[in-house]
């Protein structure tokens, strides 16, 4: 058989024909007449037939003919290409397939048989192709063969287990029976490895490394075998303290989480208490004592145990820690000190005196407010007022220092006091209260720059201006029902205040994103785009943050910007369509990279990470953000009267637009000092309700908004 034409040459030839598939098919058939057994030409023919709606069955027949070919095809690149084609065809009919079919699997088996001693290479190639195509049953078969051919290599044994679990996870919704079988296989082989380890730690497929133990933990947890996993972690030959576990804190944490899930509160309490008690004797504490999860699980379990729920024993332990000088700096112990009075479930309370002590100790740090806010909000009404007065008088009593480092602390103390005042008083205040509070915030902000402390961002008092902006927005909301035009002045003041905030802290991207939201609310699309540009949102952060600019961009800024030269808006950011296209590119690129990574790494296949990476692919391909971006793009094209060009839109299934959505949007970046019973501030400056599936559900059914589907895989 002559294969002078390589796949690369045929691909090039195909490109020259562009959309003229009919002519390409004529050319292909002409060549096949001269060389009817040419496999490369037959693959090309199958691809060309597939592009014609009436010849898809014929395309499939060609593909099946190649799979069943005798003698079998041994060129792995060609075999992989046939596999890709079959996978593409079957995925059009059912997006949840796990395999390209028995004929394809058989094609690989025959290629392997023909390869003699190099069978492993064939199955490695099969595995890589299958992973790239997201066909986990095929990957499972490849790994099974690799395991059988390399019985002395534990990585294939454990790799087979991981891939079986992946196969189960990927078909659970469409074929629960097959998923159940694959899950059972995965568990059966894994538990066998565990048993072997216990009877003979040096057995061939014993659990002997952190990776393998991690896989055990992952799959046992996934399959709900929590009690069994706990006994493994406690085992001296395979568990946390063994040569395998190496006392890795990862497994200690897993143990406490499992005990909590199993409601083993007595064991959990004893475990955490003993560790923390022992930590008292370590000169600088131990790894576990500086981990909040130990403290939180101790208190949680105490609350559930009849004999411990008064919290007395926990309180005594905390006091022992508080009496030690080094622990005065340990935030975890301070938080335990604050939280212990909440142990009695029937009578939790917050101790205001402890809150004041915490403020006195941490006032110069940003965490002072974030740590205390959820506690002080639970104080009685009169105690809340008392706490605010305490922070105000404490800050007023401190004279303005001369030393630069002390000045920063002084600013932070005042800022933290302002935040508590906002949380407990001003946030629900009337017009006069809010206006007075704005003046207070601006006074502090001006002071911060008079002192010229060398710092920026959240540690430097910039949030004083943010608090002022929040109050201005609230003033707008308070007055808009009475006088819309006057109310608007508050919005303009808020937007104007963003400018010095950004100019004085140009590196603070959170401030810029805050400004993006505010500008979009006011319809200032170009200004919002400019700030978004400076944030340099890229790669995975596009999925979590791009909604900040792009939500309803089609309403605010559908046409290219004609901004003045003074605005440093780079070319792509002048056109909303271009910006959207750039944001959309990360999806297919990232998913392809992850798949390629998983497949290429087979010689060092990290089976314990395979499940995690697969979860990442699912998160990206079911991301709500990409659908939001596509809808905005479609709307902008319609408004401009433009044809919607083909997009690189990631692995969105338009036939299953809204199922299994993963909403990765991050609104936590917007500042929030609101009490929990008020609307979060992010909602106040959103230019409409939160876009949700209902708002995008009709989009794909409109011909104008539906982009052309690129071929897969690319």
């Amino acid at each position: 058989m002559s294969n002078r034409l390589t796949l690369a040459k045929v691909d090039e030839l195909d490109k020259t024909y562009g959309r003229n598939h009919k002519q390409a098919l004529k050319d292909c058939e002409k060549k096949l007449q001269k060389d009817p057994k040419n496999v490369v030409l037959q693959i090309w023919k199958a691809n060309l037939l597939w592009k014609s709606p009436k010849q898809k069955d014929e395309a499939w027949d060609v593909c099946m003919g190649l799979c069943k070919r005798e003698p079998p095809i041994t060129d792995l690149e060609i075999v992989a290409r046939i596999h890709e084609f079959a996978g593409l065809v079957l995925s059009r009919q059912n997006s949840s397939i796990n395999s390209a079919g028995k004929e394809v699997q058989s094609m690989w088996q025959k290629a392997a048989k023909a390869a003699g001693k190099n069978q492993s290479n064939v199955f490695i190639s099969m595995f890589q192709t299958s992973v790239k195509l997201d066909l986990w049953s095929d990957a499972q078969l490849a790994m099974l063969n690799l395991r059988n051919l390399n019985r002395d290599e534990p990585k294939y044994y454990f790799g087979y287990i991981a891939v079986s679990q992946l196969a189960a996870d990927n078909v659970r919704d469409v074929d629960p029976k097959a998923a159940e079988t694959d899950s059972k296989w995965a568990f059966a082989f894994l538990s066998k490895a565990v048993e072997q380890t216990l009877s003979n730690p040096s057995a061939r497929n014993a659990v002997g490394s952190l990776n393998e133990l991690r896989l055990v933990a992952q799959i046992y947890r996934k399959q709900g075998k929590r009690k069994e996993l706990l006994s493994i972690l406690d085992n001296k030959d395979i568990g946390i303290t063994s040569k395998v576990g190496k006392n890795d804190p990862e497994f200690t944490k897993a143990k406490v989480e499992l005990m909590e899930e199993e409601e083993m509160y007595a064991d959990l309490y004893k475990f955490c208490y003993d560790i923390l008690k022992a930590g008292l004797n370590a000169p600088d504490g131990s790894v576990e004592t500086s981990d909040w999860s130990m403290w939180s699980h101790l208190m949680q379990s105490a609350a559930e145990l009849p004999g411990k729920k008064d919290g007395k024993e926990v309180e005594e332990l905390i006091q022992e820690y508080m009496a030690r000088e080094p622990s005065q700096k340990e935030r975890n112990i301070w938080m335990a000190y604050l939280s212990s009075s909440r142990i009695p479930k029937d009578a939790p309370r917050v101790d205001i005196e402890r809150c004041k002590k915490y403020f006195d100790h941490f006032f110069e740090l940003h965490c002072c407010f974030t740590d205390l806010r959820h506690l002080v909000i639970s104080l009685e009404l009169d105690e809340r007022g008392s706490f605010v007065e305490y922070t105000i008088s404490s800050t007023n009593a401190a004279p303005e220092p001369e030393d630069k480092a002390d000045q920063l602390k002084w600013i932070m103390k005042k800022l933290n006091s302002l935040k508590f005042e906002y949380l407990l008083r001003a946030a629900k205040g009337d017009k006069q209260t809010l206006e007075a509070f704005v003046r207070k915030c601006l006074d502090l902000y001006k002071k911060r720059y008079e002192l010229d402390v060398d710092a920026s961002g959240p540690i430097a008092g910039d949030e004083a201006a943010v608090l002022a902006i929040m109050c201005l927005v609230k003033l707008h909301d308070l007055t808009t029902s009475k006088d819309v035009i006057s109310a608007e002045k508050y919005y303009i003041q808020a937007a104007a205040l963003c400018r010095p905030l950004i100019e004085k802290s140009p590196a603070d991207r959170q401030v810029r994103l805050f400004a993006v939201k505010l500008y979009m609310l006011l319809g200032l699309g170009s200004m919002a785009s400019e700030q978004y540009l400076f944030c340099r949102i890229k790669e995975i952060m596009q999925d979590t943050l791009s909604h900040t600019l792009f939500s309803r961009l089609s309403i605010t800024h559908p046409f290219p910007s004609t901004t003045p030269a003074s605005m440093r808006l780079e070319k792509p950011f002048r056109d909303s369509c271009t910006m959207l296209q750039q944001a959309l590119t990360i999806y297919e690129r990232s998913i392809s990279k992850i798949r390629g990574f998983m497949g290429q790494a087979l010689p060092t296949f990290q089976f314990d990470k395979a499940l995690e990476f697969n979860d990442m692919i699912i998160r990206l391909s079911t991301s709500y953000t990409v659908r939001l971006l596509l809808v905005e793009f479609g709307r902008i094209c319609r408004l401009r009267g433009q044809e919607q060009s083909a997009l690189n839109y990631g692995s969105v299934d338009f036939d299953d637009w809204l199922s299994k959505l993963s909403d990765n949007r991050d609104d936590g970046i917007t500042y929030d000092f609101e009490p929990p019973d008020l609307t979060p501030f992010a909602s106040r400056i959103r230019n409409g309700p939160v876009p949700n599936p209902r708002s995008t559900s009709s989009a794909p059914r409109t011909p104008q908004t539906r982009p052309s589907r690129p071929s897969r895989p690319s």
Partner: protein
Amino acid sequence: MASIRPMTALDLFHFNQTNLDHLTETYHIGFYLEYLSRWPHLCRVIEGHDGTIEGYILGKLEASPFPPPNPPYDPDTNPNPNYLPWHGHITALTVAPGARRLGHATKLTESLERQSDAHDAWFVDLFVRAENSVAQELYRKMGYSVYRRVVGYYNDDSDAFDMRKPLSRDKDRKHVRENGENINVEPSEVW
């Protein structure tokens, strides 16, 4: 309060608090996946009480990609001070601006040191800009010292200090030295 745990791939959806800091670089996804798959025990995040990621560290274990001058490697017989034996390396260490001065950097670094120690590394090293005295002081307090100055290491031709901390395997502290700031090497001599 803080809780350290291994970094997972899904954490990339939740690290905005740290990565919006202008000094923190956001890499393409393959960069993170390589670290997470090859050195998962050296990639840790530190969380606040509400589960927010307040910082993370990415590290690796490696040695020079060529055999030592006198195999097997022994610091007493190694003539090439630029040869890198098995060691831990801090590639990225970042703490969210709002979570600084809480000891997070120290806790994350210590966790990497413990893991490196458990894997028989001789030392842990890192590169820091020669003009970044704040970072250098942070690491000095943790027991690191400058081993050498790499001239023109960064893209803008700035020098880097290669700082090291010996681990328990290096009982005699053979992999650190005094006055490393004055020992210049070219980037080509550094792997």
